[in-house]
C-alpha cells in the first residue's frame, strides 16, 4: 500500500486531506448532539474523526517522499497555487495537534467542568481549533498562517467561556478576547509592514528578499510587531500575563488543550516564519534577532519559574511552568541550528505528554471533588496512589529528572545551545540560564510531590477518590509515553531530526 490511493482520489487536495476530514467532523458534530442528546455520542464521533484523520496523516507522513507534486494544494499553477504544503514538518506537527485533540476530547465528555449544554458546539469548536492549527503548520505564506491562527483563536475564546457556571471563566474569556484581539492586530500590522518592505509574503521567498534588501525600518517594525503578536500566542514573557488567568478560568481539558496545543502552534509559527527567514544568513546581520530571541527565551524561563514558586493554585503553577517551557523551546530560535530545532520539536512532543498529563490529573481530581489548591493535594498518595504516582512522573519529567521524557528532550534542546555543529558555541550562557532555571523549577514541582507523598490529608478528606475512568485511560497513556520517550526516544527523535532538516531545507 502506498499513498497513491489518496492521490488518485483526492488529487491535489491530498495535501489537506487530514484537515478536510476534521472539518467534516466539526460540521456534523452539532447535528450528532441534536439527534442523540448524548455527550458520549459526540465524544465517540469526534474521537473517530480525529483517529481517522491521524491515521491518514501517519500514512502520508510515511509516504511523503513518493507523493511528489501532490503535496502542494492545487499544484503550482492552480488558483490556490501552493497555499498549503504538506511537509514532514507539517506532518509531524499535525500529529502533535491530533494527539492533543485526542486527549482533550476523550476526557471532555466526562469532565464535570465542561458544560452539558452546547456539547455539540464544544466538540465542533475543539475540532475546528485543531484544524486551524493543522492549517497553520501546512501554510506556505503569512496569510495562510494568519487565517489558521484566527480560526484557532476564535474557537478557543468560545471554548474558554463555555464553562458558564464559573465567573472566573467569564473573566478569563474577556481577558483572552482582548489580548487575542491585540495580538491579531499586531500580527496583521506586522505582516503588512513585512510585505511592504520585502514585497512578498511567501515563506520561501522571505529569506531571498531579506538578503536582497537588508534591514529597513519598516522591516524592523514589522518583525518586532509580528514577534510580539505571536509572542502572545505562545505566552512568552513579556506577553504572558493572560495565560495564568485563562488556564485557571477555563475548564481543565480546555486549559490542557491551550497549554499543549495552541502554544505549540505559536511556536511552530516562529519556526516556520522567523527561523526559516533568518537561518544561515550571513550577508545581512541577523545577530540582533538571535539576541532578541535569546533574551525573550531567558526572560520567559526565568519569569515563568520564579513566579511559579509563589503560586498556590496548581493550574496557575502549571501555567507559569508552561511559560517557562516556552522559554526553553525558544532556545532553538536563538541558536538557529537544525540540531537545536530537533531538540525544540522533541521537547514540544514531550511537553504534550507531561504537561498534558499533569493537567489531566488536575481535571480528574476536580471531578473527584479535590480543589485546585496545592494544599488540597495533601496526602494524595494515600487517597489515590496511582494518580499521585502519575503526577510525580509528570512533575519530575517537567523538571527534567532522568530517565523521563522531559530529561531526554531537555538534554537535546539544551545541548543545542552548546553545539552548533562545530566547536562549542557562543550560546553556552543560554544553556547555563536554562539549566539553572531547571533547578529552580524543581523546587516548586517537589512542593507538589511533597504535598502528595509526605503531608497528611486534611480532616474529612481521607477517603479514597473516584474519578471518571476515561481520565485514568488518558493519564495512563501519557504516563507510558513519558517513560517510554525517556528511555527509548529513537522513534520520535529521528522524525524530529528529519522534520527539522526538512523545514530548513525545503524552503
Amino acid at each position, binding site marked *: 500500500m502506498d499513498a497513491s490511493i489518496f492521490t488518485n482520489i483526492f488529487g491535489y487536495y491530498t495535501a489537506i486531506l487530514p484537515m478536510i476530514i476534521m472539518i467534516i467532523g466539526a460540521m456534523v458534530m452539532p447535528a450528532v448532539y441534536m439527534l442523540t442528546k448524548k455527550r458520549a455520542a459526540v465524544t465517540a464521533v469526534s474521537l473517530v474523526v480525529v483517529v481517522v484523520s491521524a491515521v491518514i496523516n501517519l500514512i502520508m507522513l510515511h509516504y511523503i517522499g513518493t507523493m511528489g507534486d501532490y503535496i502542494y494544494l492545487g499544484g503550482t499553477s492552480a488558483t490556490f497555487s501552493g497555499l498549503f504544503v504538506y511537509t514532514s514538518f507539517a506532518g509531524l506537527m499535525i500529529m502533535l495537534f491530533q494527539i492533543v485533540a485526542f486527549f482533550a476530547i476523550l476526557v471532555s465528555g466526562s469532565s464535570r467542568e465542561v458544560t452539558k449544554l452546547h456539547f455539540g458546539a464544544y466538540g465542533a469548536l475543539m475540532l475546528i481549533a485543531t484544524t486551524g492549527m493543522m492549517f497553520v503548520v501546512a501554510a506556505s505564506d503569512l496569510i495562510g498562517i494568519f487565517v489558521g491562527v484566527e480560526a484557532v483563536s476564535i474557537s478557543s475564546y468560545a471554548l474558554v467561556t463555555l464553562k458558564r457556571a464559573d465567573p472566573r471563566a467569564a473573566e478569563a474569556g474577556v481577558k483572552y478576547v482582548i489580548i487575542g484581539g491585540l495580538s491579531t492586530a499586531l500580527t496583521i500590522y506586522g505582516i503588512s509592514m513585512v510585505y511592504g518592505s520585502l514585497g512578498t509574503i511567501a515563506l520561501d521567498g522571505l529569506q531571498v528578499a531579506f538578503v536582497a534588501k537588508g534591514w529597513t525600518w519598516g522591516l524592523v517594525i514589522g518583525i518586532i510587531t509580528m514577534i510580539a503578536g505571536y509572542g502572545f500566542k505562545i505566552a512568552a514573557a513579556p506577553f504572558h500575563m493572560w495565560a495564568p488567568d485563562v488556564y485557571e478560568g477555563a475548564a481543565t481539558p480546555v486549559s490542557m488543550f491551550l497549554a499543549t496545543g495552541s502554544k505549540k502552534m505559536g511556536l511552530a509559527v516562529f519556526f516556520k516564519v522567523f527561523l526559516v527567514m533568518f537561518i544561515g544568513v550571513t550577508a545581512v546581520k541577523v545577530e540582533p534577532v538571535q539576541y532578541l530571541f535569546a533574551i525573550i527565551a531567558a526572560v520567559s524561563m526565568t519569569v515563568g519559574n520564579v513566579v511559579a514558586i509563589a503560586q498556590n493554585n496548581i493550574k496557575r503553577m502549571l501555567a507559569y511552568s508552561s511559560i517557562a517551557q516556552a522559554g526553553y523551546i525558544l532556545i532553538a530560535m536563538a541558536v538557529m541550528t537544525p540540531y537545536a530545532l530537533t531538540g525544540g520539536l522533541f521537547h514540544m512532543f514531550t511537553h504534550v505528554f507531561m504537561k498534558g498529563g499533569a493537567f489531566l490529573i488536575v481535571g480528574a481530581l476536580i471531578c473527584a471533588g479535590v480543589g485546585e489548591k496545592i494544599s488540597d493535594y495533601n496526602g494524595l498518595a494515600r487517597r489515590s496512589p496511582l494518580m499521585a504516582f502519575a503526577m510525580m512522573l509528570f512533575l519530575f519529567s517537567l523538571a527534567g*529528572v532522568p530517565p523521563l521524557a522531559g530529561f531526554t528532550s531537555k538534554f537535546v534542546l539544551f545541548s543545542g545551545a552548546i553545539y552548533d555543529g562545530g566547536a562549542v558555541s557562543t550560546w553556552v550562557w543560554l544553556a547555563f540560564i536554562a*539549566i539553572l532555571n531547571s533547578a529552580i523549577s524543581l523546587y516548586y514541582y517537589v512542593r507538589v510531590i511533597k504535598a502528595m507523598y509526605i503531608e497528611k490529608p486534611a480532616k474529612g478528606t481521607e477517603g479514597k477518590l473516584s474519578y471518571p475512568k476515561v481520565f485514568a485511560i488518558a493519564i495512563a497513556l501519557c504516563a507510558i509515553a513519558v517513560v517510554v520517550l525517556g528511555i527509548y526516544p529513537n522513534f520520535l527523535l529521528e522524525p524530529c531530526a528529519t522534520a527539522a532538516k526538512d523545514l530548513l531545507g525545503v524552503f
Partner: protein
Amino acid sequence: MDFNTLILPLLILVPLIGAVLTLFMGGNRAKYANLVALVFTLITLVLSLVVMITPVGELDKFNFTADWINAGGLKMSFIFVVDGLSILMVFLTAMLEVLVMAFSYKQSDRPNYFYALLLAIEVGLMGVYLSADYFLFYIMWEVSLIPMYFLISWYGGPRRHYSAIKFFIYTHVASLIMLIGIFCMVFESAHLAGSATVDFSFAFVKQWMAGADSVFQILVFAMLFFGFAVKMPAVPFHTWLPDAHVEAPTAGSVLLAGVMLKMGSYGIIRVCIEALPGALGSWQYIVIAIGLVSMIYGAYACIAQRDLKKMVAYSSISHMGLVMVAMGAAMGGAAAGDANLVKMGIEFAIFQMFAHGLISGMLFLVCGTAGHNFGTREIPLMGGMAGKVPVYAAFMMFAFMASLGLPGLIGFWGEFGIIAAFYQWIEPNGMLYLLVICLLSLLLTAGYYLWAMQRTLFGRLTTKLDFAHVHDVDRVEAVVLGVLAFAIAIYGFWPDLALSYVTGYAQAWAVI
C-alpha cells in the same frame, strides 16, 4: 553471548527487580519484604564477588555494550565496564547494601517502601560505577538521588523535610552544572573528531579530549569539578551533608556516607583526571587547597558537635578531604611527569575511598544504634555507658579507632599513603609547611574521637538517661557490626587485598 558479559548489567538489574518486587509487598506480605530484599542484595553481592575473584588483567571480559539511542546525530549506548577503579566501589556498594538491609530488619513504618528505596539507591550507585557512557552515567547519577530524597523525607528525623529538599536541590544543581561540562566535553570531542554523530562513550571523549585546547579543558574541568565536589562534599560546598546525615535514617546515612559520597571522588578520577589531562597542572593547587581546607575544617567542626551523628558527618568531610589531597597530588604528578607520584596518589585515593566506605559505614551504624537503643545521640546526655552496654562500647571504640587511623586497621593505610604522596608533591614545590596542616588535622581527629569516647563511654555513669529503656546491641546488629569490624581489621592487616586491584589501574596511569 557468554555469561560473563551479562554480569555487569545484572548487577544493576537484580536490585531493580528487587526494588519493584518489594515495592508491592505491602499489607500482609510486608513481613517477607525484608527477606526478599535481603535475598536480592545477596545475589548482587555474589555477582560482584564473581567479578572480584577475577584477576585484574582479565576484567575486560565483563565489558558489555549495546546500542541504545542512535538518532538525530546523537549516539548513546549501554556500555558497562569494570576496572581497578570501579571494582572496589562495586564491591563496597554490594556489601554495604546487604549489611544495611540486615540491619534495618526492624523497620515497621511502611517497610516495603523502605527496602524498595534502599534497593533503588543500589541501582543508581551500581550504574554510576559501571557505566562508561556519559548519558548513561548522568542518568544513573540522578537516579541515585531520588530514592535518597524519599528515604530522608519519609523516614528521617524531625527536620527531615528541610534536609531532604536541601539535599535534593543542592546536589541537583551541582549535577546540572556537571551536565553542561559533559555537553561541552562531548560536543567538542565530536567537533575535534570531525564526526557527524556525537558519541557519548567515555572512550571516544577520552580519545579526543586530550588534544583539546588547554584553556577549554580548564573551564570544563571547573564545571565538572563543581558537580563532583558538591557530592564529595568539599568545603565550601558541604552544607547539605550534616543536615542530610543527621536527619536520614541509619540505613540511609550508611549508604550516603559509605558509597554515595564516593560518587564524587570517583567522578573526579574517572572524568576530570582521566579525560582532561590538559587541565590537571592548573587545577592541582586548587584541588589540594580545597582538600586541606576540608580536612582541617571538618575536623575542627567535629569538636563542637553535641550529636554523635553530626560529629561523624563532619568527620566524613574531613576524611574525604584526604581523598581530595591525594587526587591533587596525583594531578600534580601527572602535570610534572612524575609517574611514581601519579601512581601513588591515585592508588591511595582509591584505597582511602574504600577504607572510608567501610569505616564510615560502621560509624553511622554505631551512631544509629545509639539512637535506637539509648533513645538519644546527644553526647552530653551520655556518660559511663561502657559499663552498661559493653558490646556496644567495644564496637564504638573499634570504629572510632579505625577512623582516627590506628595502625593495623584499614584507616591507617589510607592516611599513611596519602600523606606520603602529599609529601612527594610538596617537596619539589617547597611548601613543606603545608604538612603542618595535615598533621594538625590528624591530631584534631584523634582529639575529637578520644574526647567523644571519654564523654560517652567512660567517666561517671550519666543520670540523664532512663536506663530501663537502654539495651545493648541485639544479635543482628552485632553480626552486622562484626562483619564490618572484621573487614576493617582484615584489610588493615593485609591492605594488599584491596590495593592489588587498584595497582593495575594506577599502573596504567603511570605509563602516561
